[in-house]
């Protein structure tokens, strides 16, 4: 840092130096903070997409939140969201990503890069294209049922009979690449002599994994879990294209429910209430994430 000035001129200069941060702060306040604040405000009103309540929303206190608890769809939707995030992110993407990364340390380089490309392709594709591909795959006469047919199995109409399972599998397919990349990077940091020393001591493969490798990369595991949970919590397009939340709300996660209430049914007040709940969940996770980060990088 250059020469220190007299106290008051110095502090003025320090503030002046922070000036370049202002455009970012303006953008964040206008397009992120304001919508969040407006969301909390509107969730206490009967704001609507059209009609009298669109022009002049009334304050209705906690009515929207009371409705959430008494309504039968919201608890179902919250539960579906928990299952969706738990099964597709925490179990599916996380575990599969780790398995692929571990296998890649044992496999040949050509296989690793080919498979890596296949996994990443599903992730880089535009979300709408990935959603169409997943829809075609699980549809009545789609690829999955054709494959099952080759083994003499008559497959179900997956999108209607098992919509939640279909979107969970589709999201594992779509998102595993992120975990795989995180774990490949993490595993490449594991010092080789540590696991070789354990090998000398006669530790078996799974013992080395459980007691040496995983503890070393636990920081990456925690970070990865946080990030994929947040990403999966926000998944909308995949579900909307594949099942539109149906049939009869059997795959309506909270983002889909918020969309339906706000835009299909025109109830902005109730839609923002659901959105506010999602934002709050995001904030809780964000707080944990920041704390986790501060512990790892003091």
């Amino acid at each position, binding site marked *: 840092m250059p020469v220190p000035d007299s106290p008051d001129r110095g502090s003025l200069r320090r503030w002046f130096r922070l000036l370049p941060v202002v455009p970012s702060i303006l953008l964040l306040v206008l397009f992120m903070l304001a919508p*969040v604040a407006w969301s909390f405000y509107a969730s206490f009103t009967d704001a609507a997409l059209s009609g009298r309540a669109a022009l002049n929303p009334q304050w209705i206190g906690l009515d929207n939140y009371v409705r959430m608890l008494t309504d039968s769809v919201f608890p179902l939707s919250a539960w579906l969201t928990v299952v969706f995030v738990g099964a597709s992110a925490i179990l599916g993407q996380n575990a*599969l990503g780790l398995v692929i990364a571990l296998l890649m340390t044992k496999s040949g380089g050509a296989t690793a890069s080919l498979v890596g*490309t296949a996994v990443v392709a599903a992730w880089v594709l*535009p979300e709408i294209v990935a959603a169409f591909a997943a829809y075609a795959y699980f549809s009545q006469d789609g690829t999955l049922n054709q494959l099952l047919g080759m083994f003499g199995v008559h497959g179900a109409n997956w999108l209607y009979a098992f919509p939640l399972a279909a979107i969970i599998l589709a999201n594992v397919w779509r998102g595993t690449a992120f975990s795989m990349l995180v774990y490949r990077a993490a595993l*490449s940091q594991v010092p080789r002599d540590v696991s070789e020393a354990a090998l000398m001591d006669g530790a078996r493969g799974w013992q080395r994994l459980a007691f040496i490798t995983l503890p070393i990369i636990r920081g990456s595991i925690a970070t990865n879990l946080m990030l994929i949970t947040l990403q999966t919590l926000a998944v909308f397009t995949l579900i909307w294209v594949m099942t539109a939340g149906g049939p009869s709300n059997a795959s309506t996660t909270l983002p889909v429910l918020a969309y339906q209430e*706000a835009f299909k049914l025109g109830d902005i007040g109730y839609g923002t209430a659901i959105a506010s709940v999602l934002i709050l969940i995001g904030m809780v996770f964000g707080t944990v994430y920041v704390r986790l980060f501060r512990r790892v990088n003091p």
Partner: protein
Amino acid sequence: MTSLRRGPRLSERRPTAVAGGRPRVRFAANAALAVIGLCFVLPLGWLLLASVDPHAGYQTRWPQSPSLANFAAVLTPDLLFQPLVNSFLLSAGTAVVNLAAAVLAAYPLSRYQSRFNKPFLYAILFGTSLPVTAIMVPVYGLFVQLQLLDSMPATIFFMATTTLPMAIWMTKNFMDSVPLELEEAAWMDGASGLATLRRIVVPLMRQGLGVVFIFVFIQAWGNFFVPFILLLSTAKQPAAVSVFSFFGQHGAIAYGELAAFSILYSVPVLILYTVVARGSGSAFALSGAMKG
């Protein structure tokens, strides 16, 4: 298709790669990976086959009379070019706004010690975790109030903001690795902070900035939900939204054209990703995003 050439190079560099392991372990690992890879490719098979099949449905099959008719059919200004131009304007605009704001913000955060830095960076990190889909309902409300619906610039600024926390974070990390000495010399010569930023720091971190730019561009290009909610007129809609024109008004879906269009729309991001992955390895991009 994408980063075929990246893998071997990476594994050579990797200290843990127990050079292939024992043959039997290696064979088992290769076989398991091959099965997993096949599962990941399968859903894309339909897309590729249907695109060259003029009579495609949702079934995956070898086309009886393969042709490029589907591609020819979508190569029209209304169906393909206008939406792609819109996608490009939206994504490039988002990436430019994003990068400009991020570089400016990252400079003081990276170069000057201040009590403001840490809280701001933690707030930024916190901001990366807000679920964007959840904000869309209130953003729509806000856009209606401010009469910004169906405005391309407003949509660009909003999309830039949603990726801004991640971009600032990455840019600051890349900037931290640019050595201070050169700048100090420039300061001695009386150059102002912003002049040094423009003439010394930015050129030195070209590669990192390229990664951030492409990162943001890919996300904006693939984004469906935001333009779907905020852009109403067909003339402004990007390819992600206009793709629904293949779902005819009478319930007839042009599957083959849908697949062909999807492929043409995906190619740019596949290329861009390959550029980033080959140039520097996606581990490099991730390290910008994840380290402290």
